[in-house]
């Protein structure tokens, strides 16, 4: 261990019968990082988190979380982490306060600190005045923040969030992320899965997983720089659908994807240029209104990674 790795896994694998849900995944997360785990549905994100939390035994490979072995010391792992499951796991027939009190009891937050801690969490989640409301009557954003409050009631140094923003409106999402970055500033390490690529943009590092295989792992900037082999062009033309079909056979074009009415094309700079491609399209009868080189977004990187054969 060079720096302080708070999560360190090697060759982590989980099989469900014939299905390899997580396939030989290795990575390390440093203290204080906001580590985004990105992947489409069924790619093995939740399975990975479950193994890290010590509730699912890996088929093979090993891992340490906070220095504890995830296969053998799951109980210790559980005491020191916070976890927010994919569905906000609140007791809907309990009030906001009762939910928090329950988890405070379960995590054995000392009685002397409990009161101030609950006030703190209620303030943080913006739930003041709603303490006596049943959790089931809260709307999505409130529920989400309450669930976060329950997950960090014992002030864990490491927080696992499994798709915490699924099904929540954009304003609530932003507010939630403000809370997460606030936690990160106090030194909490955050491991978060998502399929919102814009959320991953702000992460310290991003891991991309597909079909259980780790495809990339770097900071968002590095990913954008390194992951794409070539230059990314944005093209605007009259008949985009047709253009995409044609571009797939164009010389020096690696990949094509349609974003609304704009085409993104990945070109090999040694063989092709923006001007050259416009001219080529003009030759096959398509009017091009603009072709500019753009910085790739994470989405481009993601599509290029999982689209790759």
């Amino acid at each position, binding site marked *: 261990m060079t720096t302080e790795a708070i999560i360190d896994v090697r060759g982590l694998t989980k099989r469900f019968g014939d299905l390899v849900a997580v396939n030989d995944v290795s990575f390390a997360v440093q203290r204080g990082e906001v580590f985004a785990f990105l992947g489409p549905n069924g790619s093995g994100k939740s399975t990975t988190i479950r193994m890290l*939390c010590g509730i699912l035994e890996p088929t093979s490979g090993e891992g340490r979380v906070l220095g504890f072995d995830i296969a053998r010391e799951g109980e210790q792992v*559980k005491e020191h982490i916070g976890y927010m499951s994919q569905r906000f796991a609140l007791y809907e027939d309990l009030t906001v306060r009762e939910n928090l009190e329950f988890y405070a*009891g379960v995590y054995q937050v000392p009685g002397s600190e409990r009161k101030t801690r609950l006030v703190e969490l209620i303030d943080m989640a913006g739930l003041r005045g709603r303490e006596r409301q049943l959790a089931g009557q809260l709307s999505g954003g409130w529920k989400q923040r309450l669930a976060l409050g329950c997950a960090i009631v014992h002030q864990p140094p490491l927080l696992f969030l499994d798709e915490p923003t699924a099904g929540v409106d954009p304003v609530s999402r932003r507010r939630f992320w403000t809370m997460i970055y606030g936690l990160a500033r106090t030194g909490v390490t955050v491991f978060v899965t998502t399929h919102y690529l814009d959320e991953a943009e702000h992460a310290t590092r991003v891991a991309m997983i597909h079909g259980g295989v780790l495809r990339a792992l770097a900071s968002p900037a590095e990913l954008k720089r390194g992951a794409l082999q070539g230059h990314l062009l944005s093209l605007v033309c009259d008949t985009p659908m047709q253009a995409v079909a044609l571009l797939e056979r164009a010389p020096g074009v690696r990949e094509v994807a349609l974003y609304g009415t704009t085409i993104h094309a990945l070109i090999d700079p040694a063989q092709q240029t923006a001007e050259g491609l416009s001219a080529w399209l003009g030759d096959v009868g398509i009017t091009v209104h603009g072709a500019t080189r753009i910085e790739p977004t994470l989405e481009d990187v993601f599509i290029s990674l999982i689209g790759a054969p």
Partner: protein
Amino acid sequence: MFGRIAPIILKEFIQIRRDPRTLAIVLAMPAMQLLLFGYAINTVVDHLPTIVFDESRDAQSRAFAAAFHNSGYFDLRAQAHSRAEAVAAVDTGEARVALLIPPEFGNHLLRGQQALAQLVVDGSDPNTAQTALFAAGMVAQVQSGEAVASLAERLGRGSAASGIELRPVVLYNPSMLSVNFMIPGLIGLILQFQTLILTAFAIVRERERGTLEQLVVTPIRSWELMLGKIIPYVATACMAVGVALAVGRFWFGVEVAGSLPLLAALSLIFLLSSLGVGLFVSTISQTQTQAMQLAVFIMLPSVLLSGFMFPREGMPFVIQQLGLLIPLTYFLQILRGIILKGVGMEVLWPNVLPLALFGLAVFGLSANRFRKRLG
């Protein structure tokens, strides 16, 4: 050690309080079942339509029949012309009781020999049947006494006379389950149903709503979760039994003849097996509907084979043996023993032993399965 169990128990009680369905199962169900069963059975019985087939046709037989009528319990509606006609009248429901007096009745009575009479009673309503038997017994006794006395007076010697012997035949429900008989059975059934269903529900509900997944990531150990889930429903089961006993006592006048502490202690032993089954159901079911179906499926043999509804004595041998595999079978004997007969351990232990063994085995296996399925 109880640090993490307490919050679970507290939470469970809050949820019970807020869930009308659970509350109804806990409090209303025992009272309702008892009243339903009790009222189906316990109605005031008199003026039972009675048919008489008198083959003796003399002063003695007529006096005997008249005494039946005069008791107020029986209305002599008709004279039958054959034994078959009398029994048929009970069959069709025209009469609830048939009094059959054989030809030699009067003569035997006069000579101080035992005079036989037969009473055929419709047992489909146990309470009616019981009242009928009781009343008829009284009438026969009084008449018998009078006959013996007049004989002694006439012959001027002591009573070597035998009087009247009434032979009852109860149709349809020979063991005559009555409310007294029902109350212990109901208590057993309520205990079993409540702990099984509510424990299973409490766990499956968390699985359904996803909170179980959240719980297993907390430092709660599986045994802590298990105890936290079980203890509240043992408590509510005790309340339910309290309600049932109170209704039995104050409404139907059925008092617990034996020791209450013994009843409580043996009930806890019985609970081991139903809690175990509840845990087992919770490990199998993904939804509360599944849990309910499974629970009913498991409970059905208990209701049918334990002797709660049908007396075990009347069952075919194989079915009787199957009944021995059901904890409620033993517990019913215990309940009836303590509540109705007031007996203690010295009589009950042959039932307590298998009950305890069953309880430990079922609970142990289920708890183990629960631990594995959760971990």
